[in-house]
């Protein structure tokens, strides 16, 4: 990765160059240096495997340029250049941006200067400088923990267990620097965090258990590597023979990971100013209205002190912030970047799109404009979108998980789902997903038999989950969703009458 000082120096040089161009009314230069290291665990007892299948990295340095001409305040162009942070590349990018000018009637200009973002980008993240081999060692330690646990505890009758241990340790590091005609300083930010997930499957007993962690310190990484493999294996070995409930409506305890999936694929994309402008939000016309149970508040907070992801500045150079999306069940805020914010607020159809309950003097902060690349880190070669960092649900009148399990009485606890999709489009709010593991029958207020992985599918609407849960936990647990860039801190919800379909019927 490029040092922060080098990124900052380049952004300052580029900004100085662009400031001398008399044809430009405004400009922004965004430089980033990103690295992601992944150690992928794949140990299959009866099929030849490498244990840690591969250790790989991708590194990308480069910069993006946005310009506005003096000819027309709506005439704007953009370009990006990989690898070469030099004055020659700035000239090349400028030529490309000038060649790519468009007159966009909705273009509101570049974002204003941040005024007050610490140029240093806050405290140095603990994992920003660790060796790439730390990730590989963490994966091997985890795998060895799982295998040792299996060797120690597996019953002798498991002759051909069909043991699968899969997962990964992923370390993401990002640095950015922004200079623009709208700010006097060069804004800098940096972050480093890891996610880790281990899935153990024992095919002979149809047991499956997953353990995961997300964090940002070396200590958290160490804890994860010593515990995840062992914990997942213990739970898989402790698993009783699974059951296969039939189709029906059940009282269901939905755990943090399934909630994360539903939020990530269904709810968060609907809580953006872009979705309201396009008219494809599941909450279209319901801004200011009650969309969830009044005991639920949903928050995006890139600055959360305990969040795995910590950002002080957006990719538009604005202060990263806490956005209260749902307050006591009411839709009260939207994820937004500068362009989408202005386009929605100046839209003639704004009142119809937001709904009658939206405040007349509504303002939406542009606090969520990020360039999140396909690998989940900030990247110069990605356009700005409204994105979340740490998604948090806070609850009122919450109970403990044990109390909720007792309260369920007879029902189902769903601990893991996958393939969650808006089956009839985002606006419809219908979703479907498969119950993939870590799920149990609850009988007489106690967890009893595990549910066979992949035998049940949830076919429901988001309101069936969030509008009126029978109960919820007070405590939120960290989780993440494969392939999605956010960290989640979520409770468990108890929902009555959730429709579940047998996947085999």
């Amino acid at each position: 990765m490029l040092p922060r000082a080098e990124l900052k120096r380049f952004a300052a040089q580029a900004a100085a160059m662009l400031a001398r161009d008399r044809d430009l009314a405004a400009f922004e230069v965004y430089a980033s240096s990103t690295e992601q290291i992944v150690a992928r665990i794949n140990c299959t007892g009866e099929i030849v495997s490498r244990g840690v299948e591969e250790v790989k990295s991708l590194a990308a340095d480069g910069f993006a340029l946005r310009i506005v001409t003096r000819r027309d305040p709506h005439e704007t162009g953009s370009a990006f250049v990989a690898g070469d942070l030099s004055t020659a590349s700035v000239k090349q990018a400028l030529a490309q941006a000038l060649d790519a000018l468009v007159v966009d009637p909705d273009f509101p200009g570049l974002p204003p200067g941040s005024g007050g973002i610490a140029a240093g980008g806050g405290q140095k993240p603990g994992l920003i400088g660790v060796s790439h081999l730390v990730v590989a060692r963490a994966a091997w330690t985890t795998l060895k923990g799982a295998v040792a646990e299996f060797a120690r505890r597996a019953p002798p009758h498991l002759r051909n267990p069909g043991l699968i241990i899969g997962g990964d340790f992923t370390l993401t590091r990002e640095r950015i620097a922004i200079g623009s005609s709208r700010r006097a300083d060069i804004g800098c930010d940096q972050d480093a965090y890891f996610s880790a997930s281990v899935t153990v499957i024992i095919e002979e007993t149809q047991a499956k258990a997953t353990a995961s962690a997300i964090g940002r310190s070396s200590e958290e990484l160490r804890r994860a590597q010593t515990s995840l493999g062992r914990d997942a294996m213990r739970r898989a070995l402790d698993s009783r023979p699974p059951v296969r409930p039939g189709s029906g409506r059940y009282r269901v305890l939905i755990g943090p990971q399934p909630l994360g999936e539903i939020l990530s694929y269904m709810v968060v994309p609907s809580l953006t100013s872009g979705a309201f402008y396009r008219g494809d939000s599941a909450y279209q016309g319901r801004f200011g209205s009650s969309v969830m149970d009044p005991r639920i508040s949903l928050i995006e907070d890139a600055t959360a002190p305990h969040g795995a992801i910590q950002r002080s500045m957006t990719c538009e150079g604005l202060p990263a912030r806490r956005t209260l999306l749902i307050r006591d069940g009411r839709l009260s805020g939207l994820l937004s970047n500068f362009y989408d914010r202005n386009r929605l607020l100046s839209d003639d159809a704004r009142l119809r799109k937001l709904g009658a309950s939206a405040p007349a003097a509504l303002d939406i902060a542009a606090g969520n404009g990020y360039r999140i690349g396909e690998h989940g880190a900030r990247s110069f070669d990605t356009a700005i979108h409204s994105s979340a960092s740490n998604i948090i649900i806070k609850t009122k009148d919450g109970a403990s998980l044990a109390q909720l399990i007792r309260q369920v009485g007879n029902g189902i606890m769903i601990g893991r789902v996958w393939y969650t999709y808006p089956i009839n489009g985002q606006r419809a709010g219908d979703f479907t997903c498969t119950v993939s593991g870590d799920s149990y029958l609850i009988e007489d207020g106690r967890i009893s038999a595990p549910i066979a992985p992949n035998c049940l599918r949830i076919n429901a609407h988001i309101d069936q989950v969030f509008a009126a849960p029978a109960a919820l936990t007070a405590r939120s647990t960290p989780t993440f969703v494969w392939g999605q860039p956010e960290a989640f801190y979520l409770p468990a919800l108890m929902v009555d009458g959730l429709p579940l379909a047998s996947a085999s019927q």
Partner: protein
Amino acid sequence: MKELLDAIAFLKRHGPAELARLAKSNAGTINAAVRFEVVFRRSASAENGAPRRTSEHESAALGISVATGAAHAIGYGYSGIDIGRAALRRARLIGSLRSGFEAAYERARLCEKRSAELRREFGIGAGHWAAAPPLQADKAAAYARDPRSVPNGEIAHLVAETSRAVAQLGREVAFNAISAFTESRHELFIDSDGSVISQAFAVSQGDCYVVAQSDGGGVQESHDTIGQQRGLECLTDGWPEQPMSNPGLTDFSIDLARESCELAAAPPLKPPAGEVVVVTDPHFNALLVHEIVGHPSEADRALKMEAGYAGRSWLLRSLRDNEIGRRIGSPLLSACSDPAIRAFGHYGYDHEGTPGRRVMHIDRGIFSGFMNSRATAAIMGAEPNGSVRASNVRFAPLIRMSNTFFMPGDSAPGDIIGEVEHGYYVCGNRIPSIAESRESFRISARRVYEIDHGQPGRLFRAGSVIGGSKHFFMHVDAVGNDLRLIAIPNCGKGQPMQVKRMSNGGPTLRSRARLAGGE
């Protein structure tokens, strides 16, 4: 671009010797490969008739893989580096290659050592690697208009005019977004066994997204893609060649918008009870074959290497108990992956340097084989079949579909529908939801027509097909002669997620399944 192509020429001359030297001087290296990729792309987008963005960019990146060890323990490391225009500085290019090799080698050696320890202590873990003879090849791109020669203004005009035409269809079109790109991609593969393979591709793609709203309050969101491994001509003029023809971007977008308006006014499907006769069209079958045949036929997924992410395969429970050679579908049903077809998933050589070739997955109802890599081929005792590719060179390659499709039969689509007394004609794919091993699925359709006495009648939106994979395939009783491939722009796989382009499709099929509607 020309300058960066010079970097490819430079690496072609000097890369093999440098890689051989690195492999030889780093003990235990059994295979090393360098991929270098130069991409030039022009793109544009417009919304509601107004231009949003045009861009032109070029990129260059290196990917270095190193495998070390022997049969008792193999370690594998990979290093992807976005080098961009710094590749023009030859010392920097060679320096990046060396530093990338060093990082990949250190990772491989650590893994090799730990793998040997695991094997000693617990008796599990090892590695296989199928060697392949070295190849020298040069493969050219196919296009009438070189993507590098297209002015920014032309592609910007195409999307803006298309978006305007869609917006003018009426106030039912609440929102539309049109985007397009044309891209020139050059890939160089060098490995320590002596292969030097150069491939060039031209890719053009257009996307249309529409939100339509009826007076009655019905809303339909539709998205679809057209694309070819061709120049921009396939978007401006359309592309006539089967099995993957497409109209021009403007006609395509207008058709999609009109359909969306019609659907917004249509009622949501009220699903009938129980199983019904369903006739599925080629566009719907593209997603069906993708999810239920394609992904489960990837050997890494079948060998449970993805169990923690995307699941396993219903086609292989274990090496002893699997569907190879067994009937999984009606004798009318066949499916394959064929990278030789010049569709969206076309290539000559994969990213391990193996020539791509047709892989039969289902041969008249019998499951017959997986797409594989050199490592998985060795595990399964098969020959490598050239199915390993990354979405770009920064990522380590994975086993991927190419052009994966149900093969055509003899029946006319009209007859397939005409023979149905009562059933449903399911058209256009939308969203998939599948079980962990893809043994069952729920796939939503854009349009569902009720068939009454052989005639498609009333139109419904928000309909889905729910089926057991084997059950659905075994009940296929008619296969059309209307093979069509669809451009799939966004297949996600791996950690980190790689998004890949490919083609999927098939002819019209008739089977039995349950239907679902809006929740």
